[in-house]
């Protein structure tokens, strides 16, 4: 019973707040929205504990959705470990962020009911996504979170940059959603259903199925897995389709924390785990998942090292951490990727919210070059941000240590070539992660202040509505890894997951995690400490060094600073040609060619009749004369032919 309440309470909050907000006033709307979320945050974890405590998995049937011939999908909530864990996390983190937003938007001159309406609606869509019992409903949530993300990125709609970022996020996600939708259609074509309870048991019978594409025959499951993964790449901002995530930081910071760190962007990882019964039969697609994930982990980390906007550093860090999760999923240890998903939700939401607290204190300044030495002014924020970064960098016993190490170990344990590639990428990324995290800490909280003194005079610690959620998340960032390790990937994993995550017959990577060389366990930690040391040298001991390095390696620096020129490349090969093609089709295709024919015909008719009109002069003499000539000619012909 708790479970459906957890899903629908946010919807009720969103409707009250969003639709009645103007009528009942800002405070009441905010109250309704937060209340809905609090109810969800009580019911969601309770439902999860019931399940782990031995309750039976179930399906809550809500009714028919779409029917056409043998195509049938229902509205239903799936109640199993994988869904319940996500529901617990999403509802809890979302509730904290709702509370935080009360304080964060305290100075915003606009009415806030719209913001809370969107935020609650997002939570509902996300909960529908994770509780879906079929792929169509999952797609409902998938698109719903995309819509809310678009609305929230563009929340400050009078800023051109926010509008541009919102549009970019929506369209890039749509580009990925099209293959995803085609993937669903292909699943229906092969399996005759989109319902999980029908698909999963049937996968084994379809391993020999083939599908013809590009004139070649592929295993059908591989094609499906590829199409689904492209959808996941868009939502989870993986290499190639990551371009929208950094720009999405134009939205208010609580949005970045909730949507672009803790929940929505992890939907792709969740999809991999949910579809594990199918993914496990698509080894090539899985290798591709590992490749993209590991590459993203490293690539995004390099960019994170040179960004100056505090939120963008964390955004690239998110991108990179999502790469870790995909790397783990790709080698078949979905348990580890889910583990990292949960711990990451805590510490990354914590990081974003503390960054928001910094920005709040600094009168909306986001450039770290204009900060420094803030640790004394805002000590609580500084402390929790240290905790978040310790977790992110994987320093024991903080949460990230448990889950990130498990992922790195899993890539090594897989023993495959692509696994080794992923191992190298993720270990290097661990070094860079620690480096940019402490670069952020040092630039923001330590050393000399570079801020404007007017700003510093107003710098103040945030109100308790903001610090409260920060402290709760900090507790999570400290203990989540240690508490959950045994259930998620340790000895108790089989009992805990209860079959909701499937590992193929020959997939023993998770068992092998315990028997790895000792150096594999310590490599990320050692490199992480080295990264911290390097950050100390560069930003505390010798603050002029970064400038000199940037000058010495100017081309490399510019390349990384400009995010590997992805935006420029896409603009050149996709956006500009599309615009030119649009104009060409319109002005040449429609106006000149297609309309040219009827307009030309009309012109021809007009011109022709104008000429013909000239014959009709109205002069009797001319008519008589013409008639006379006619008669002469006729008579002449008659005479001659006789």
């Amino acid at each position, binding site marked *: 019973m708790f479970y459906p309440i957890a899903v629908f309470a946010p919807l009720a909050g969103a409707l009250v707040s969003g639709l009645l907000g103007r009528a009942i006033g800002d405070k009441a709307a905010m109250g309704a929205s937060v209340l809905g979320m609090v109810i969800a945050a009580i019911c969601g974890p309770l439902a999860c504990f019931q399940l782990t405590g031995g309750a039976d998995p179930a399906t809550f049937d809500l009714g*028919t*959705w*779409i*029917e*056409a*011939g*043998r*195509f049938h999908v229902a509205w239903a909530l799936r109640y199993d470990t994988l869904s319940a864990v996500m529901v617990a996390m999403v509802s809890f983190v979302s509730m904290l962020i709702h509370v935080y937003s009360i304080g964060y938007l305290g100075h915003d001159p606009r009415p806030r009911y*719209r913001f809370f309406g969107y935020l609650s609606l997002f939570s509902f869509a996300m909960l529908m996504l994770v509780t879906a019992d079929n792929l*169509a409903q999952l*797609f*409902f949530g998938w*698109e*719903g979170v995309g*819509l809310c993300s*678009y609305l929230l990125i*563009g929340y400050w*709609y*009078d800023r*051109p940059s926010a*509008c541009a970022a*919102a*549009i970019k996020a*929506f*369209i890039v996600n*749509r*580009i990925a*959603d*099209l*293959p995803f*939708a*085609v993937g*669903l*259609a*292909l699943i*229906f*074509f*092969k*399996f*005759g*259903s989109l319902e999980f309870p029908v698909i999963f048991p*049937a996968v084994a*019978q*379809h391993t020999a*199925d*083939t*599908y013809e*594409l590009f004139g070649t025959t592929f295993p059908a499951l591989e094609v499906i897995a590829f199409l689904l993964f492209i959808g996941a790449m868009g939502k989870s901002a993986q290499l190639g389709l990551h371009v929208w995530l950094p720009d999405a930081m134009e939205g208010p910071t609580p949005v970045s924390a909730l949507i672009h760190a803790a929940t929505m962007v992890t939907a792709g990882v969740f999809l991999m785990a949910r579809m594990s019964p199918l993914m496990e039969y698509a080894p090539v697609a899985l290798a591709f998942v590992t490749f993209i994930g590991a590459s993203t982990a490293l690539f995004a980390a390099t960019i994170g090292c040179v960004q100056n906007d505090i939120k963008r550093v964390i955004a690239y860090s998110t991108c990179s951490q999502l790469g870790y999760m995909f790397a783990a999923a790709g080698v078949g240890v979905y348990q580890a990727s889910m583990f990292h998903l949960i711990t990451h939700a805590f510490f990354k939401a914590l990081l974003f919210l503390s960054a928001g607290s910094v920005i709040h204190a600094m009168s909306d300044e986001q450039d770290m070059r204009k900060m420094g030495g803030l640790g004394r002014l805002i000590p609580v924020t500084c402390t929790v941000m240290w905790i978040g970064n310790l977790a992110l960098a994987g320093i024991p016993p903080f949460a990230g240590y448990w889950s990130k190490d498990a992922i790195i170990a899993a890539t090594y344990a897989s023993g495959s070539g692509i696994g080794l590639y992923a191992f190298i990428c993720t270990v290097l990324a661990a070094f860079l992660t620690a480096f940019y995290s402490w670069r952020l800490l040092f630039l923001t909280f330590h050393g000399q202040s570079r801020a404007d003194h007017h700003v510093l005079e107003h710098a103040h610690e945030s109100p308790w509505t903001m610090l409260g959620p920060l402290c709760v998340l900090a507790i999570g960032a400290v203990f989540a890894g240690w508490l959950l390790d045994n259930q998620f990937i340790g000895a108790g994993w089989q009992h805990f997951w209860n079959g909701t995550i499937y590992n193929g017959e020959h997939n023993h990577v998770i068992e092998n995690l315990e028997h790895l060389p000792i150096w594999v366990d310590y490599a990320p930690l050692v490199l992480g400490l080295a990264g911290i040391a390097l950050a100390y040298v560069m930003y505390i001991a010798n603050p002029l060094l970064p400038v000199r390095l940037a000058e010495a390696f100017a081309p490399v620096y510019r390349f990384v600073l400009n995010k590997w020129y992805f935006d420029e490349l896409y603009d050149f090969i996709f956006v500009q040609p*599309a*615009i030119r*093609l*649009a*104009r060409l*089709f*319109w002005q040449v*295709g*429609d106006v000149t060619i*297609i*309309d040219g024919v*009827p307009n030309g015909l009309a012109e021809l008719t007009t011109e022709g009749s104008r000429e013909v009109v000239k014959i009709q002069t109205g002069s009797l003499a001319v008519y008589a004369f013409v008639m006379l000539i006619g008669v002469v000619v006729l008579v002449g012909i008659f005479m001659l032919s006789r």
Partner: protein
Amino acid sequence: MTAATNAAGFPILSLITWLPLVGCLVMMMVRGDEATVASNARWTALWTSLLVFVLSLVLWVRYDPSEAGFQFNEQVAWLPEYKVGYSMGVDGISILFVLLSTLLTPICILSAWEVIQTRVREFMMSFLILETMMVGMFAATDFVVFYVFFEGVLVPMYLIIGVWGGPRRVYSAIKFFLFTLTGSVLLLLALIAMWLQAGTTDIAVLLHTTFPAGMQNWLFLGMFASFAVKLPMWPVHTWLPDAHVEAPTAGSVILAGVLLKMGAYGFLRFSVPMLPEASAVFAPFMFTLSVVAVIYTSLVALAQEDMKKLIAYSSIAHMGVVTIGIFTFNVQGISGALFQMLSHGIVSAALFLVVGVIYDRIHTHEIARFGGLGDRMPSYALVFMVFMMATNGLPGTSGFVGEFLVMIGALQVNFWLALLGGMGMILGAAYMVYLYRRIIFGRITRDDLRHILDLSPREWAVFAPLIVLTLWMGIYPSSFSNYFDATVGAMVQQHAAALGGASKLAGILPAAGGITP
């Protein structure tokens, strides 16, 4: 009048069809000064159309969805020696379009309440006559009767554009008339040929008449000429943007909402079931044109600077999805096409109303004249957002169901058909989101927008039923698709049987999950 087996017990279809003309008569009888006539015309038109709508709900309630054939049949001898009769009836394919027509007419009349100030009576009469023609066309079960109504639609629409339209109304009206009429001549030829072959024009009989394969191809082309222009398909679509731009709001609404469905309805009613072999032969051709339409017109929409043109082009792209669905010949594809038609009937009509709201206030469709309306018009922004997302096919709105079913149907034919036909998902999002950004987002920079007013109660009354329908169709589509399930199922089976190929059957029968192409 003799009404044969009829679930309602009286000739309800004829009543729905002809009642609007009674309203016209009432209007014509009123004498007095201009204001009295105008006010009387408005109220008479509204009450007549509402009465018709309520009557049409009888169809909704009394229709038996489990039955595939025509219901509420009426038969009156008209030209018995030629086997041409006045006969009416609805099946799963047509019933919802009758309802769509009767729903949109009062909405149009309400939307034109204050805007139309000249020749109000004539305007309202045109709309009621148009309603008669539309309902008659969907309810006709005789090809000749159908043809009369099908062409009859042109006249009131021509007047609505030509008399109450914008500055280039005459050019647009004539273009609209000539484009659609040219195609219809060939439809008439096909009709005569079919009558010569079958000896009757009764649609129910024609549906079970087998035409020789060679003849089918010619008949198909004749029908194609007419239906493709009406639809409109690329490359005979250019009359539509012009007609929309010049038409008054109410005219655009009915044009997008109902008139665009006539072509696709024609394909579904005549081409596919009566000419199964020709349809199969021409399917790749139809797919090609449809995919080109989706991509080409979506791109063109991206470049538009006029709101109405943009939405007109988006309509063409959406109708491309419909033709893809129809020619997949499987249940999902055809159901999806039908659903997409209904959804588009609601959503694009609503989008033209959305444009109308700000046109009434500022008197321009030019996108660049707007910006930042979100500040002044929050309710309007919300309504616009709902319909924008519906036209983008967001799950939970009506737009998704049709598009998704068509994609599922298309993939059973060909992977690339599904992928390229789905390009509207990306491009549609691009042009709509870009439009929304230019109208609603940003800051208000122009003085005349600083005091623009949000939706009035009358405008809310216009939008509310459309919003409810959009969400209802998105969340519980079965209450609509349930009406055509049986008819579509029978149609697909008949089509497969006519082709006789075992390979075609395999894709349609329920037990055939997991076959490889």
